[in-house]
C-alpha cells in the first residue's frame, strides 16, 4: 500500500512540474508521507491549491474541524524556512512557470560557492543529464540480492579446492597426514641446501663467507684455489702434449710391427724369435734375481701358473694335427721322430709336479690307500677282470707278469708301430717303476680277493675271447700308430661287448628258431643298448653287421664280425665319447654274468608303459570312455516320438495295429540339436550343460564401473600374487589406497595444500607445453 501511494505522490509532483526530482524525495522519503490518511488529505489539498486564496482558507478551517471530529492526530508537516508566497506541505513552492526552480539554477549557485566539494558538483551534473531513477528495492529483496552475491563469492572461493579434491580422488595412494615429511634419513645435499641461516649471527657469518667466496658446503678449496690448481703453464702443457704424442706414435708402431710379425708363416722365423725372446727373458731373470728378488719370485710364480695352465691344456701331447701328421711320418723320417720326441719331452717337463717331487712316494701311498682317490694306474691291476677296457692294455704301469701274458699283442703292435712310441713308453716306465713296486703289491692283493669272489669260469672265457679278439685285431695290421690303434681297439671292444650282449640274448631265444623273433630281439637289443649307438655315423653299417651275425647265430663266427666292426671303426681316430659314455651299465652286467639274464629281461620289460599296462590290465579304459561318449551323444540326438494311440478314430482291439497314415501323423520328430563341440575330438567329452555348483561362484551381470565384459574379464584374469608377479610389481599392485600413520593426528586440509597443488600444476603445465613443443 505504501509503495503505491508513494508512486502516486511522485506523479503529482511531476504534474505540478516542479523540477525537483525524485532524488530529493528519495533522499528524505520519511518526510513526505507516512500514513495512508495523510495521503488522502494531501490529495485533496493538491486539488485545492489551484483555487483562490479565500476559498482555500475556508476549506482549511472546515477540514480542520472535520479532522478534529475524527479525533485522529495528524502528523506535523515539515516546516519551511524559505520565504515564499504560499506554503504547502511540499517543500518546494512553485506557483508559476516563471517561479519554478530549475536544477540548473541550483547548480549555478553551487558552482559559485567554493565550499561545495567537487564530487557533489559532479554528481549534480550527472543528475542533470539523467532523466529518472528507479525506486529502491524492498529490504527483503535487497537482502536476497546481498545473499546471492555473497553466496556466489563463497562458491567461487571454495571452488579453488576442486583441483586438489579431484586429484586426491584419482590418486592411487593417499598418505595421511598430508603435509608429512618423508621419514628416514635424508640425502646430505637436501639437508645442506634446505638449511638456512636463521639467527643473526649465522646470517652474518654466511654473509661474510659468501662475500669472500669461501667454500660453504664442501670445505676443501676456495674457487680461487681450485682455479689455480687447475691452471698449468703453456710450456708445461706443450711439453706434455708432445710426450703424449710421441708415446701414442710409438705404440702404434709397435702394434703394427707385432701384427706384421704375427702374419709371418715361417716356422723357423718364429722359432728363432721365440728362442731369442727366451734368452732375453732368462738374462733378465738372472739379473732380476740379483737385483730384485721379490719381482723374480713373482716372475717365477707366473711361470708356475703358465706351467699349470699348460699342464691342464692338451698342448704338447702329440694329439694335435701336426703331431698326428708327424706320427705318420715318424716311421720313415728321422726328423719327424725327433720332433715328436722333443714335444713329448716338453710335455713331460711341463706336466711334472714340482712340489710333490719331494715326498711324492708317501703321498701316493696315501692315495693308493684311499679307495676313492685312486690314481689311474692303481686300477690297472684289474685289467684282467675287465678285459673290455682298452686302456688297461699296453699302458704305462702294467704288471710285468701280465705284460708277459699280453706280450704277443704288445709285441705285434710295437713291431708295427716302429717302436718310437715304445721307446718313450719304456722311458716312462723306468721312471715309474719305483712307485709302481709298492702299488703293485696292493694290486696283487686286490686281485687275489677278486679272484676268490668272482666266477672264475666266466673270467676265463672272457679272457679267451679277449685274446682271440686282440689277436684278430693285431692281424688286421691296419694300425700304424700306437695311440690310434688303442683308440680303435676301444671302439672295437665296445662293439664286441655289444655282440656279446646280443649273443646272450640269442642264447635266451635259442629255443625259438623263428628268424622273425630273432629279429625282434635284435630290435629290443638296439633299443636297450641306447639310441646313441644308432646315432653314430656308421650305425647302419654296424647294424648290418649285427643282423648278419644274428642270422647264423649257432655258428657264431665272432672274429669275422669283430673284424668287420673293427674295419668300420678304423676310420675314426678318436674315441666316440657319446657312444661310450651313454652306454648303460646293464650291458656290462650281462656280459659278465649271464646267469642273471632272466631278471635282466624282466627289468627290460618293466618299463613305464608296461608297468601301467600291468596295473590296469583288468579295465578297458578306452572302450569305456568311448561308450560314455556315445551315451552322451545319444542323449543329445533327436529321437522320434511315437504318440499314436490305438483305437482313436479306428477300430481297436487286440492284434490291431494303428494305420500307417495315423502313425505318420502322430510321429513327432524333434529338430536336431546343434552340433556338439567335441564331435571332431575323439578323446574328449565336452559337456555343455550348465554347472550349478560353478554358477554359484560366477558373476551374473556386469558390475558397475565396467563398461563391457572384456574389460571385466581382463581385470579378473590378471593375477596379483607373488606367484605370478615379480616382487616389485606385487608391491606396486597391492599398494593400499589410504595409508595412515599409527598414532598421528590427521589435520584437516590446510590452505598450504592449495599452494602446493598450484605450484605442481604450474610445473606440469610447463612440462606439458615443453612436450607439445618437441
Amino acid at each position, binding site marked *: 500500500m505504501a509503495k503505491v501511494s508513494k508512486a502516486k505522490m511522485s506523479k503529482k509532483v511531476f504534474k505540478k512540474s516542479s523540477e525537483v526530482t525524485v532524488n530529493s524525495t528519495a533522499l528524505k522519503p520519511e518526510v513526505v508521507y507516512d500514513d495512508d490518511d495523510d495521503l488522502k488529505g494531501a490529495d485533496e489539498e493538491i486539488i485545492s491549491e489551484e483555487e483562490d486564496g479565500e476559498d482555500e482558507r475556508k476549506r482549511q478551517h472546515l477540514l480542520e474541524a472535520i479532522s478534529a471530529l475524527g479525533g485522529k492526530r495528524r502528523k506535523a508537516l515539515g516546516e519551511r524556512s524559505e520565504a515564499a508566497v504560499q506554503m504547502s506541505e511540499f517543500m518546494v513552492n512553485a506557483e508559476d512557470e516563471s517561479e519554478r526552480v530549475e536544477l540548473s539554477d541550483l547548480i549555478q549557485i553551487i558552482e559559485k560557492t567554493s565550499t561545495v566539494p567537487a564530487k557533489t558538483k559532479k554528481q549534480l551534473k550527472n543528475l542533470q543529464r539523467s532523466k529518472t531513477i528507479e525506486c529502491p528495492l524492498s529490504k527483503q529483496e535487497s537482502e536476497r540480492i546481498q545473499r546471492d552475491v555473497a553466496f556466489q563469492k563463497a562458491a567461487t572461493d571454495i571452488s579453488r579446492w576442486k583441483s586438489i579434491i579431484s586429484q586426491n580422488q584419482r590418486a592411487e595412494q593417499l598418505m595421511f597426514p598430508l603435509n608429512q615429511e618423508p621419514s628416514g634419513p635424508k640425502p646430505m645435499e637436501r639437508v645442506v641446501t634446505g638449511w638456512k641461516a636463521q639467527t643473526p649471527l649465522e646470517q652474518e657469518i654466511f654473509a661474510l663467507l659468501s662475500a669472500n667466496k669461501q667454500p660453504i658446503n664442501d670445505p676443501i678449496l676456495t674457487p680461487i684455489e681450485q682455479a689455480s690448481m687447475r691452471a698449468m703453464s703453456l710450456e708445461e702443457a706443450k711439453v706434455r702434449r708432445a710426450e703424449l704424442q710421441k708415446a701414442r706414435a710409438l705404440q702404434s708402431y709397435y702394434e703394427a710391427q707385432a701384427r706384421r710379425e704375427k702374419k709371418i708363416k715361417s716356422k723357423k722365423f718364429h722359432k728363432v724369435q721365440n728362442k731369442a725372446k727366451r734368452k732375453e727373458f732368462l738374462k733378465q731373470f738372472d739379473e732380476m734375481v740379483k737385483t730384485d728378488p721379490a719381482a723374480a719370485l713373482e716372475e717365477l710364480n707366473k711361470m708356475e701358473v703358465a706351467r699349470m695352465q699348460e699342464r691342464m691344456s692338451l698342448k704338447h701331447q702329440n694329439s694335435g694335427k701336426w703331431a698326428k701328421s708327424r706320427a705318420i711320418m715318424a716311421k720313415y723320417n728321422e726328423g719327424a721322430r725327433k720332433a715328436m720326441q722333443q714335444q713329448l719331452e716338453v710335455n713331460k717337463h711341463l706336466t711334472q709336479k714340482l712340489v710333490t717331487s719331494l715326498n711324492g712316494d708317501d703321498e701316493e701311498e696315501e692315495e693308493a690307500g684311499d679307495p676313492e682317490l685312486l690314481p*689311474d694306474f692303481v*686300477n690297472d691291476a684289474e685289467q684282467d677282470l675287465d678285459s673290455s677296457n682298452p686302456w688297461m692294455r699296453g699302458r704305462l704301469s702294467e704288471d710285468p707278469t701280465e705284460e708277459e701274458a699280453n706280450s704277443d699283442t704288445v709285441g705285434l703292435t710295437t713291431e708295427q708301430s716302429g717302436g718310437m712310441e715304445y721307446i718313450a713308453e719304456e722311458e716312462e716306465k723306468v721312471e715309474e717303476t719305483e712307485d709302481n713296486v709298492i702299488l703293485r703289491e696292493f694290486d696283487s692283493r686286490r686281485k687275489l680277493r677278486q679272484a676268490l669272489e668272482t666266477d672264475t669260469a666266466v673270467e676265463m672265457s672272457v679272457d679267451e675271447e679277449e685274446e682271440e679278439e686282440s689277436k684278430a685285431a693285431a692281424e688286421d695290421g691296419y694300425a700304424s700308430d700306437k695311440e690310434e690303434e688303442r683308440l680303435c681297439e676301444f671302439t672295437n671292444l665296445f662293439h664286441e661287448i655289444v655282440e656279446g650282449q646280443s649273443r646272450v640274448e640269442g642264447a635266451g631265444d635259442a629255443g625259438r628258431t623263428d628268424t622273425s623273433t630273432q629279429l625282434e630281439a635284435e630290435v629290443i637289443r638296439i633299443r636297450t643298448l641306447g639310441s646313441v649307438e644308432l646315432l653314430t655315423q656308421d650305425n647302419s653299417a654296424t647294424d648290418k653287421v649285427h643282423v648278419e651275425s644274428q642270422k647264423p647265430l649257432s655258428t657264431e663266427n665272432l672274429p669275422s664280425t669283430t673284424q668287420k666292426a673293427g674295419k668300420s671303426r678304423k676310420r675314426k681316430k678318436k674315441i666316440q665319447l657319446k657312444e661310450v659314455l651313454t652306454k648303460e651299465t646293464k650291458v656290462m652286467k650281462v656280459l659278465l654274468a649271464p646267469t642273471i639274464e632272466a631278471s635282466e629281461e624282466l627289468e627290460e620289460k618293466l618299463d613305464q608303459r608296461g608297468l601301467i599296462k600291468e596295473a590296469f590290465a583288468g579295465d578297458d579304459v578306452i572302450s569305456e570312455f568311448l561308450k560314455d561318449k556315445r551315451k552322451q551323444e545319444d542323449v543329445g540326438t533327436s529321437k522320434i516320438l511315437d504318440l499314436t494311440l490305438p483305437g482313436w478314430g479306428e477300430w481297436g482291439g487286440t492284434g490291431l495295429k494303428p494305420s500307417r497314415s495315423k502313425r505318420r501323423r502322430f510321429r513327432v520328430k524333434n529338430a536336431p540339436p546343434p552340433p556338439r563341440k567335441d564331435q571332431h575330438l575323439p578323446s574328449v567329452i565336452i559337456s555343455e550343460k550348465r554347472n550349478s555348483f560353478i554358477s554359484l561362484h560366477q558373476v551374473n551381470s556386469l558390475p558397475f564401473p565396467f563398461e563391457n565384459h572384456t574389460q571385466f574379464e581382463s581385470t579378473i584374469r590378471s593375477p596379483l600374487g607373488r606367484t605370478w608377479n615379480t616382487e616389485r610389481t606385487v608391491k606396486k599392485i597391492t599398494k593400499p589406497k*589410504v595409508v595412515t600413520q599409527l598414532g598421528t593426528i590427521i589435520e584437516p586440509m590446510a590452505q598450504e595444500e592449495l599452494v602446493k597443488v598450484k605450484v605442481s600444476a604450474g610445473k606440469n603445465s610447463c612440462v606439458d607445453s615443453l612436450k607439445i613443443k618437441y
Partner: protein
Amino acid sequence: MTSIHRHYNVSSANALHVYAFSVHFQMKVKVLSRNPDDYVRETKLDIQRVPRNYDPSLHPFEVSREYTRALNATKLERVFAKPFLASLDGHRDGVNCMAKHTKSLSTLLSGSCDGEVKMWNLTKHDCVRTLQAHEGFVRGIVVRYCGTSFFTVGDDKTIKQWKMEAPGYGEAEEPLNTILGKTVFTGLDHHQKEAVFATCGQQVDIWDEQRSSPIRSFTWGVDSFSSVRFNPVETELLASCASDRSIVLYDMRESAPLKKVIMTMRSNTLCWNPMEAYHFTCANEDYNLYTYDMRNLDRPFMVHMDHVSAVLDVDYSPTGKEFVSASFDKTIRIFQKDGGHSREVYHTKRMQHVICVKWSADNKYILSGSDEMNIRLWKANAAEKLGVLAPREKQAINYNQKLKEKFQHHPQIRRITHHRHLPKNIYHQTKELRIMKEARKRKERNVRKHSRPGTVPVVSEKEKHVVTVVK
C-alpha cells in the same frame, strides 16, 4: 691323456655286479656354474634371495587360485571382525555431546544430560577429570584449536570456557570465562585457527573469545537451530541445521547468511568433510544422511540409507573417505562418503539410542556416546589388527585387501562381506522399510502407467528430499 676310473662294487648278497664307467678326459668340460653373488646374501639380515621362474605355464589356474584366496580372506575378515574395544562408564546420565582433543589422541571430553563434563584417557579407559559445568543438559562442547582450553554450552543459557588442565590441589573447579546469554544455546563449534567460536540457539552467533557479546548474529526467519559447524578447510564458512527443516550456510565475514535448503524433514546435525572443502553431510530425521555439495544445494550429492530410525549425529573420518553416523535405532553405521549404503554396522545388546559419535583423529577408532550413560570405543575397521605390524603381515594384509577388491563382485564373496548379524527389531524394521519402499515405488509406477505420459515425472531419490532452495 685318457684314463678310466672304474669302481667295482661287489654285493655279496646276490652277487650282482654293478659297474659304473666314469671316463675322465682332459678336456674342457662345461659345468653349471653360478656366481655366488647372485644367491649369497651379504649379511644375515638380508632377505634370502629365492630364484623364481615366472613362466605362466608353471603356475596355472591363477584365477581360480586367487579366487580361493580371496574367498578365504573374506571369510577370515569376518572371523576377525571384533570391533568393540571398550566401554567408558562413569556418567550419571545420558551422554549428550563429545569432543575430541585437537592435540592429544588419547583425550576425550564428554558432556552428559545432567550438566557434568568428563575428561577421559582413552588409552587407560579411564576418567581423568569430572566437573559440573552446567545446570541441566550440556548441549555442546568443543576444544579450542590450540588444545589448552575448551568451551561448553548448556541449558542454563551460559557459555563457559574451561582450562584443559585440572585445577591444582585445593583449587576450586572454576571456568576461565562465563558468558551469560539471553536464550538457550543448543550447539557450539570453534574456528579452526582463530579465537572465534559460534553458537546456535534462537540464532546463530559468532563470538570473539575476548568479548561477552557476539560479534555477529545471523537470523533468517524465526526458528531454532540444532547444530552449527565451522568448515574445517575453508575456515570462514559455517553451516547450521534449523528446526524449520532447513540447512543454512553462512560466511563469517558477511552480514547475512548465504543460502538455505529446505528438506522434507529436519536435519539434526551436519559435518563438513575435512578433506573436501565443499562437501558436507547432514544427519536427517527421515533415517537418511545426505551429502551435499555446498555449491549445488538443489539436490544432494549422495543419499546414504540404511538406518531404521532418526539419525542423530554424524562425524567424518579425518581422511575424508568415510563417515560414521549415530542413530536412534541403537546402531552406529559407517558409510563410504560416496556409498549409498553402509559398509559396517555396530551395535551391542546394551547400547541404547546413540546420541553422539566421533571418529578419532588418527583414523583408527570410533567413539560413541549413548543414552545409557556409556561411551563406547570401537575400531574403525572391524577386522583390523591393532598395533605395529610386521612388514610381511602388512604385505599379506594389502594383498588380501586387493584380492577382496578384485573379486568383490563375485556372489559368494559379496554375500560374505555384506552379511551382518543385526538385532531382531532392526532386521525386521529394515525388511519392513524395504517393503514399504517397494510398495511406494510400485504405486508410483502404476500411477505413471495410468496417466498421460509426462504428467507424472520420474523423481530420483536424490531430488525427492529437497523441498526448495532459498536464496
